């Protein structure tokens, strides 16, 4: 027979002990990992930032005490100051843009049927590594418009607005034509109706000769008109300069103009396949024919996105491409939680869509917007992969942000662990306000 069972007191001594032991067992692996790999390193790095280049022994910094020297160089070395400035630009621009674009997408997708597909497309870059994103955008940003898609698009829009010149490198073959590529070239000696003019050009590589160019025309004077040719005044094996000959090509598509004695342009024309042009009904007086500057306009050579001036905006654009989807999804979830009745009530009261957005939607979304904004703020401080993979070697220093320089100074050849630690601590100090915010939010919940 067993003795009568007495129920153990629910919070007796042995119970508490056992529970503590259980808790310890469950927490131990996490505690060990966090202590060794996160807590100890954090403290180590703080101390290390006051020591010299390779002041390490055992598990602690030692020797080479450097005071605040590392912090001094952080704020005085040129490339590091550039990095801090770049980080400041990132902080000011990226989180706000990501949040704003996410908000716009979230609001707009609410009104379409294919929102799921749209969201999947915009959200997809989140799955791709920031490093691969960098490779993707490096390809997009190549300067040559025949290879870089961004510049190809800009070039297409530009040539749609104003066609590039047919002959960007040409120059006159005789001193009879004066001027410059910027102003165009004009025949020095005035002519009158019924005369013919020869406008010879050289320095045109064979590849630049417009397609469809034919043997240069033989000129016939025409009553009341000024006729002429623009031709490539060059023949392999020689030839007479200033004279159209057999075997020399007329230049089609060249813009020619006629200037009167007062300097005003009175007529314009475009040359035909054999290089000929005609100004009809010119009237009396003397005129100077010439070639318009637009003929010599250089073709669009591409914006130098990866150059030192634009590299940071270029990387930020790629970053927005990645994170807009995140903002859109989180804000979209917040939007779905807003009661339809509130929005409908505002609409019934006669508010326009913009007023509803500005006065109802945005204020009600404020908590979500701030979560997205703060998340992006922390994220922006740590941005690394995307910068070093987009920026080519020549502009790495121009593009570098704090996190990039932390790696470069510590492991990228310089190997100054003291300075590297100081940069890491600086980064850590920047996220501390967010850390405090998180802790406060949690303590309010409990």
């Amino acid at each position, binding site marked *: 027979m067993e003795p009568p069972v007495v129920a153990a007191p629910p919070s007796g001594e042995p119970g508490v002990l056992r529970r503590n032991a*259980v808790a310890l067992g469950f*927490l131990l692996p996490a505690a060990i990992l966090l202590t*060794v790999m*996160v807590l100890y*390193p954090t403290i180590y790095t703080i101390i290390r930032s006051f020591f010299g280049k390779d002041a390490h022994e055992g598990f602690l910094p030692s020797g080479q005490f450097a005071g605040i020297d590392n912090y001094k160089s952080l704020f005085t070395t040129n490339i590091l100051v550039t990095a801090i400035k770049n980080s400041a630009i990132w902080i000011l621009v990226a989180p706000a843009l990501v949040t704003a674009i996410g908000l716009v997408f979230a609001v707009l997708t609410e009104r379409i049927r294919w929102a799921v597909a749209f969201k999947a497309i915009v959200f997809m870059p989140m799955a791709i590594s*920031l490093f691969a994103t960098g490779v993707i955008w490096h*390809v997009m940003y190549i300067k040559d418009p025949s290879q870089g898609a961004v510049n190809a698009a800009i070039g297409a829009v530009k040539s749609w607005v104003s066609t590039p010149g047919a002959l960007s490198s040409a120059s006159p073959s005789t001193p009879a034509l004066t001027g410059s590529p910027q102003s165009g070239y004009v025949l020095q000696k005035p002519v009158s109706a019924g005369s013919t003019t020869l406008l010879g050009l050289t320095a045109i590589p064979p590849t630049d000769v417009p397609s469809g160019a034919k043997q240069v025309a033989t000129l016939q004077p025409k009553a009341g008109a000024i006729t002429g040719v623009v031709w490539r005044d060059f023949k392999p094996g020689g030839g007479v300069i200033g004279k159209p000959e057999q075997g020399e090509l007329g230049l089609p598509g060249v813009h020619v103009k006629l200037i009167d004695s007062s300097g005003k342009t009175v007529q314009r024309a475009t040359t035909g396949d054999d290089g000929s042009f005609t100004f009809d009904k010119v009237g009396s007086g003397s005129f100077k024919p010439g070639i318009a500057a637009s003929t010599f306009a250089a073709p669009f050579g591409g914006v130098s996105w990866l150059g030192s001036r634009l590299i940071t905006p270029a990387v930020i654009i790629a970053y927005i491409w990645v994170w807009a989807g995140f903002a859109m999804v989180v804000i979209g979830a917040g939007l779905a939680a807003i009661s339809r009745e509130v929005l409908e009530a505002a609409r019934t009261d006669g508010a326009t869509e913009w007023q509803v957005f500005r006065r109802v939607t945005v204020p009600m979304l404020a908590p979500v917007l701030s979560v997205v904004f703060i998340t992006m703020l922390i994220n922006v401080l*740590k941005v690394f992969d995307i910068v070093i993979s987009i920026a080519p070697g020549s502009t790495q220093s121009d593009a570098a942000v704090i996190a990039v320089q932390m790696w470069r100074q510590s492991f990228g050849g310089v190997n100054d662990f003291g300075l590297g630690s100081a940069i890491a601590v600086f980064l850590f100090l920047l996220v501390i306000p967010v850390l405090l915010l998180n802790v406060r939010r*949690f303590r309010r919940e409990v």
Partner: protein
Amino acid sequence: MATYEADAGPIVITDPSERTAAKISRAVAKTPLHIFLAFVALLWLMPTLGLFFTSLLSPTDYISNGWWKIFSKPSLATWANYSNVWNTTDIPTSLRITAEIAIGGTLLPIIVAALAGYAFAWVEFPGRDWLFVLVIALLVVPLQMALIPVFHLYNTFHLYDTIFGLILFHTSFGLPFAIFLLRNFFIGIPKDILESARIDGASELRIFVRLILPLGLPAIASLAIFQFLWTWNDLLVALVMARNTTPITVDIFSQLRQFGSNIDIIAPASFLSMIIPLGVFFAFQRYFVQGLLAGSVK
């Protein structure tokens, strides 16, 4: 419009046609919106497609053509770069290493964090709230703070340039978020279920394995996807903690110096590195979004 409806018959407003008319007018009003969003979608799709098409061009075709030439001349596309990368470079090896790091770096933190999350949620012990506050504080510590000391530690304990070392690093820095996410999910499990299991005499470990893990599966799934993508896509940690045992990101990174001439390796290799994360993403998008919403503070 109302008069027209009135003419149609004795009933003043016929509901369906009224609705159709309104629908049509609303659809027309929305056309600019559709066009705009379609344009945006195209804009977002373009860069990835661009890399893909670039990876299909032979080096000579790449130099003379933009990748968009493939639209007008599909015959330019070839898988030659892919077979070249697969057969003559180390990319397959580094893909395998990447997979090992990502799988280990996903499983280990989930196990460790689930144990800790359970303790934080359901076992009372002194100082519990303070310890959890500490975990929340660690949530935003930049991993740059650990690179130098852990580099020393790894050299001392021969973990430098090992897959396990990389897994351990990703585990540790994934833990705060993982514990935070799982504890918050576990705490929502109804108390009655746990109490009755305890009264039935089930041990804490048994409760953990039989109740908490199955019930916490949605949160664990979100976490797994996050952690997997994070470790798979890492560059910085591997760049510092490994030299020869490198994942694919580091491998491609070392090719970047010759971007122009190596594009026939860089483009297909980058695309290969994206396939698995993209697959995971599309297969488990729902969990991914849930995870985002649960803890967008990291």
